[in-house]
């Protein structure tokens, strides 16, 4: 067919290799995989919504404002089932907030050390060790938290906190070591690798001229980091914190083993509590009937929607930055 056309590279040339059936099948098969990934996300929401339908219809918005979780069959003094998410929403937000409070300074310090100050030969291996923290299964952190950390919290850290900070009202009550604070510490350990890795990549992507300009003005190492590097990387650091928060909100096994599992709003950092995730882990097997199952599904649905929103937000910040400046290592 190209015999008539001596210049087959011209844009109007006919396609020499029209898609054959093998090509089409392959494109369809891989497309099916891609479609399944997207269907999966939709299916998550639909399935949980179907499961939660009964309580959505029965309680409506009261599910979001009720602060008790009581099944009529287990408590004869209650006329009917009352399920509300407030204690678990408070538990989830409280543990995640404390975890971030502990994790952010440490992660930022580590990210700065790994990009600005550490000897170059040390950066890779140490960074990998911190990433290894993220690879250890949640259940093992929980087990360790219960066996090793909880006694330390109970006998060393919590009494000390109580005697220094009793006046804040946050550290009242008996110290048990299995409480909101211990769960938050474990959560901090688990979100640190996420925040560190993303912050490190963001800081490493800061252009060298940014640092050179500050250095040429006579800034010290810290002043370079503080005034020239961090402001430039703050978008990536923020995205890292958001994605760390997403991980903290949904963490289950480590929290279940260390938070004490009490279906009530925590009154201090030493009280037992429950997060949405630990509620699911504890109550699912012991549900009193179909209505409680539906209530658990609704709690799960709420957790799903929150984590989806947070992850979409974090990823959007990251991808916008990536297109703008490149948030990569080096």
């Amino acid at each position, binding site marked *: 067919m190209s015999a008539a056309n001596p210049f087959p590279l011209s844009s109007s040339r006919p396609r020499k290799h029209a*898609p054959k059936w093998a*090509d089409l099948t392959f494109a369809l*098969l*891989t497309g099916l*995989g*891609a479609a*399944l*990934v*997207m269907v*999966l*996300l939709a*299916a998550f929401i639909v399935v949980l919504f*179907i499961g939660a339908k009964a309580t959505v219809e029965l309680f409506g918005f009261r599910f979001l404002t009720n602060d008790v979780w009581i099944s009529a069959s287990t408590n004869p003094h209650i006329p009917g089932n009352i399920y509300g998410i407030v204690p678990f929403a408070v538990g989830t937000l409280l543990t995640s907030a404390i975890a971030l409070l502990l994790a952010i300074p*440490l992660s930022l*310090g*580590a990210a700065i050390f*790994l990009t*600005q*100050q550490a000897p170059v030969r040390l950066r890779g291996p*140490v960074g*990998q060790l911190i*990433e*290894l*923290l993220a*690879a*250890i*299964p*949640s*259940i*093992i*952190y929980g087990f*360790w938290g219960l066996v*090793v950390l909880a006694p330390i919290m109970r006998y060393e850290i919590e009494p000390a906190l109580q005697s220094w900070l009793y006046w804040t009202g946050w550290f009242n009550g008996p110290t048990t070591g299995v409480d909101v604070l211990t769960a938050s510490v474990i959560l901090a*350990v688990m979100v*640190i690798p996420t925040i560190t890795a*993303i912050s490190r*990549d963001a800081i490493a992507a800061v252009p060298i001229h940014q640092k050179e300009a500050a250095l040429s003005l006579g800034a*010290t*190492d810290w*002043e370079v*980091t503080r005034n020239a590097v961090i402001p430039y990387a703050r978008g990536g650091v923020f995205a890292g914190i958001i*994605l760390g928060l997403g991980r903290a909100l*949904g*963490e*289950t*096994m480590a929290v279940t*083993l260390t938070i004490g599992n009490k279906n009530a709003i925590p009154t201090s950092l030493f009280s037992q509590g429950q997060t949405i*995730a630990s509620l699911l*882990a504890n109550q*699912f097997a012991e549900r009193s009937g179909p209505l409680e199952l539906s209530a658990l*599904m609704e709690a*799960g649905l709420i957790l*799903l929607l929150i*984590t*989806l929103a*947070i*992850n979409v937000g974090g*990823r959007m910040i990251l*991808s916008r930055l990536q297109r703008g400046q490149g948030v990569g*290592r080096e």
Partner: protein
Amino acid sequence: MMFDRHGRRKIFSHSMTVLSGLAVVVILVPLVAVIYEAVVQGGAAFSVTFFTQRPANPCFAHPGIACPLGGVYTPIEGTLELIGLASLVAVPIGIGAAVFTVEYGRNRAIARVISTTADVLSGVPSILAGIFAFTLFLQFDKAIVNSTLDGSLALTVLMIPIVTRTCEEALRTVPESVREAALALGISRWKISVRIVLVTALPGVVTGVLLSVARAAGEAAPLLFTIGNGCLHPLQGIDQQGCALPLWIYWGATSATTNWYTLAWGAALLLILMVLAISITSRLVLNRTVRRMRGG
């Protein structure tokens, strides 16, 4: 000189360096402490019978009463079944999605949508994957709720986004010039994708699959209400109750019986060793191929 303005700034700068180095040390303390505890407590359980016997019945150690330990043969077997089944479904889907994204999606919006969806999915709390699998089977076939099959569905859901994203990164490391050269030779698109791009990126793809296996093998939350409790008896089949190492750790941690507690630490050590082995392998594989950034 110590006390002029410049000197003070230098001292402050140095102390900030020390502080940030200290942050790294503090961060690594839990890693060392967890591994130490697992080696000390779990090492006590390691022996030949640990790998060949089923868990013994729960028992409290009293002076003069021997407490048979048994082993974690059933949890290992159950985890292998779960991971095998989940990989069978998740790996083709994930690789397919990655190939589509990179080879057909290019830099178009659809490619970004797929990889962002996979990223967001990998951020979904793992316990919700369990609820998803539970509810799905409850709707369609009540008989196999609480089975290895149901548990592997939950793990499949968790593995798909990880395989998709890691494979996508691996496929993107294959230079565009390779595809163009192949196209110029008149090779069809699917052959380029399978025989050239996938083969070139194979180390990265294998690494991605291994990482997803490591993640799924350590997950207890999605199995809590999907596989039932089949640890004390020989496993019957994939439509019957199953057993898994991470779930065994949960029971051992909460049972407060002497032998299950020891077995749980043994299982924890086993999982940590597996995770370590997979990360070291993948690191070696990645270092040998193209050094490239990996998405957070």
